[in-house]
């Protein structure tokens, strides 16, 4: 069976060029980058080269990029690090309801620590209103954390506007760019970004490595204590193979970004058009235009999400779902609920996320199987398409 991978927002394969670049650092160049001997120095320069490569992808200066174990650690460090360092100034943090759990759960932890957090709502397309940010900032606010692009629906936030508002009010601005790095242009200066998180494995680099951009002058405390690594921001022996891999992946993403984005947009739009043409009663979730190139999130009324992805998997097609039944939690996706979707409609959502190796043939294959799968599940469903329509008049969009 031909296997088709359409879950690139979950993770991507390591590119061969990236793997090649990494291999020497498991073998002859295994030295500790902090050692002063030749073995150590053979690893130091490549770490600094990787820092420059990552910085270039973000429009940053290399001295402001610090390597971590991934997007989750970067988010934790940025949010908790700024919160604790600025406790004397205030204890209020602003974020959105549709952030990744790395951000949401860091904020919830800080609430237990005595901080106050505002979780801003989004509109039915998933956009945060910058005016809401401006209205919510008080003289106690120390941090605004709004993601660049959402992992489930792909909606791209007006980070530049939000960043400008935060800057004017003297509040630090963090953005989780784990999904957007390598897909959307990023300029930390022009976008008024003070802190930014990226992850290696979302851009064809290895798992277990990420980076956090921290603008010079940002008050932050380290959350992992140890030796003097990474400018005393993040202790721990440098993961040299991972860092070199992230650097190489960032370099390739920077060079190929525009062509890649075009490729992903074409495939995504082709699938979206064919789904809308060939399957009734579906809803595309996320902003119609302000959306990550390769991301397509669709609700298939009355056909449950886990059943859809399992049926597609049996045909060799890998996608993911916002259904509760796939997340280990009881509730459906917090992102889809925040858009105003009825929980039962949220349960029917499937996310297709394209990557560099996908082709039009992959879209053809999805369309060869999916209409039949949806029809089969709807035929045995206790919900009818019609019922759902009446129940969710306005199709679950919040007024």
């Amino acid at each position, binding site marked *: 069976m031909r296997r088709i991978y359409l879950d690139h927002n979950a993770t991507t394969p390591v590119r061969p060029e990236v793997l090649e670049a990494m291999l020497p650092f498991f073998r002859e160049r295994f030295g500790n980058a902090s050692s002063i001997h030749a073995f150590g120095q053979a690893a130091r320069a490549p770490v600094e080269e990787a820092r420059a490569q990552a910085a270039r992808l973000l429009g940053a200066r290399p001295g402001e990029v610090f390597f971590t174990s991934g997007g989750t650690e970067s988010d934790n460090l940025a949010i908790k690090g700024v919160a604790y360092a600025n406790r004397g100034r205030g204890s209020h943090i602003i974020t959105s309801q549709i952030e990744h759990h790395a951000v949401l759960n860091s904020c919830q932890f800080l609430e237990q620590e005595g901080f106050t957090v505002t979780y801003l709502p989004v509109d039915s397309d998933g956009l945060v209103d910058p005016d809401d940010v401006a209205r919510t900032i008080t003289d106690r606010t120390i941090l605004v954390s709004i993601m660049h692009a959402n992992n489930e629906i792909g909606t791209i936030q007006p980070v530049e506007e939000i960043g400008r508002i935060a800057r004017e009010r003297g509040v630090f601005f963090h953005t989780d760019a784990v999904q957007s790095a390598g897909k959307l242009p990023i300029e930390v200066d022009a976008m008024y970004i003070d802190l930014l998180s990226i992850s290696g494995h979302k851009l064809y680099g290895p798992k277990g490595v990420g980076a956090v951009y921290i603008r010079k002058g940002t008050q932050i405390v380290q959350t992992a204590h140890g030796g003097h690594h990474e400018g005393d921001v993040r202790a721990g022996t440098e993961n040299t193979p991972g860092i070199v891999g992230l650097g190489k992946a960032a370099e390739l993403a920077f060079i190929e970004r525009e062509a890649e984005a075009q490729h992903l947009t074409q495939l995504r739009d082709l699938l979206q058009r064919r789904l809308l043409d060939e399957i009734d009663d579906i809803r595309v979730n996320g902003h119609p235009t302000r959306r990550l190139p390769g991301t397509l999130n669709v609700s298939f009324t009355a056909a449950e999400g886990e059943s859809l992805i*399992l049926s597609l998997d049996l045909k060799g097609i890998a996608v993911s779902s916002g259904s*509760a*039944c796939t997340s280990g939690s009881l509730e*459906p996706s917090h992102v889809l609920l925040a858009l105003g979707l009825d*929980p*039962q409609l*949220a*349960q029917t959502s499937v996310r297709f996320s394209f990557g560099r190796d996908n082709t039009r043939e992959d879209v053809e294959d999805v369309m060869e199987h999916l209409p039949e799968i949806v029809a089969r599940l709807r035929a*045995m469903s*206790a919900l009818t398409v019609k019922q759902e329509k009446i129940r969710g008049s306005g199709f679950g969009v919040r007024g």
Partner: protein
Amino acid sequence: MYTPQVMDHFQNPRNVGDIPDADAVGLAGNPVCGDTMKLSLKIVDDRIVDAKFRTFGCAAAIATSSKLTEMLIGQTIAEALTITNESVAGALGGLPQAKMHCSVLAADGVRAAVADYRKRDHR
């Protein structure tokens, strides 16, 4: 993640549909995740002679619904009421721990259908 029995019932569900002249209809739902099951029974002399289901839910919910109908056909009302979510899940070779709550739908469906049957006061 699922046993072969669960996958079999998910791919080839038994007794899907409605019974037009059903003697009992039970609706069960999980208010949190939205899974919904409709169970229809044909009952003769206190014995279930036919059972059909419709389910909106994950593979675990569909497979337990399907297995439930197989277990029910031929049982008396009293026997049907001894069915638990564990017994249906067990008959499918078990479910992943995180998915056990999906099987509650089946047991709830039986109780709802029996309650409907008694309300109709068949003699």
